């Protein structure tokens, strides 16, 4: 079936370091959404990207959608303990209306 590949599975960072997670698809995406799930919590919508090459920022978070609409990234600058959690991408394919979820990237702050 259609898939959205998300890497890495985990990322350990020191507080203050940057964090990036990537999502890739072999087929064109209609749009891509990003969610954050805190430990023990439920997914919370962060943002949606629709346009080719789109870049959006939310404070220390930068979201990008590739020119070919087949990849996306989420970058967090200067991580804080409040950023801990798992970040998921989810995308609608051009070919159907089912929301396809990435595997998630778990952000872990080293003690």
């Amino acid at each position, binding site marked *: 079936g259609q898939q959205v590949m998300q890497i890495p599975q985990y990322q350990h960072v020191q507080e203050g370091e940057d964090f990036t997670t990537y999502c890739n698809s072999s087929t064109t995406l209609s*749009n891509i*959404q990003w*969610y954050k799930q805190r430990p023990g*919590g*439920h*997914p*919370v*919508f962060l943002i*949606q990207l*629709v346009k080719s090459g789109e870049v959006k920022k939310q404070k220390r978070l930068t979201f990008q959608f590739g020119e070919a609409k087949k990849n996306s990234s989420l970058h967090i600058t200067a991580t804080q303990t409040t950023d801990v959690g798992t970040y*998921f991408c*989810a995308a*609608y394919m051009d070919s159907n209306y*089912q*929301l396809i*979820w*990435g*595997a*998630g990237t778990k952000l872990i702050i080293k003690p």
Partner: protein
Amino acid sequence: SAVISQKPSRDICQRGTSLTIQCQVDSQVTMMFWYRQQPGQSLTLIATANQGSEATYESGFVIDKFPISRPNLTFSTLTVSNMSPEDSSIYLCSVPGQGVGELFFGEGSRLTVL
């Protein structure tokens, strides 16, 4: 944004029993979605529940195992039937927002089957 209440928030169940999860939304919505999230995994769609019609199940999920009710536009239930330890998961209900197609999730029901 929608406010979604799920009950129970967690439960420990015995093998072979069934449990019904309730999802209440603070506004009327046409579609409600039921997801399963196994420990440390991503979200998997179980079914889409539309008011007034049978739920639509995804591949690998069947109505006998996961019967769903959708009696009105603000409420739905998911039953996990004849449970086994493999059913230990978080079950999440979700509704679409009215903005850009985002999903809002309930707090989740964390089931442990012994």
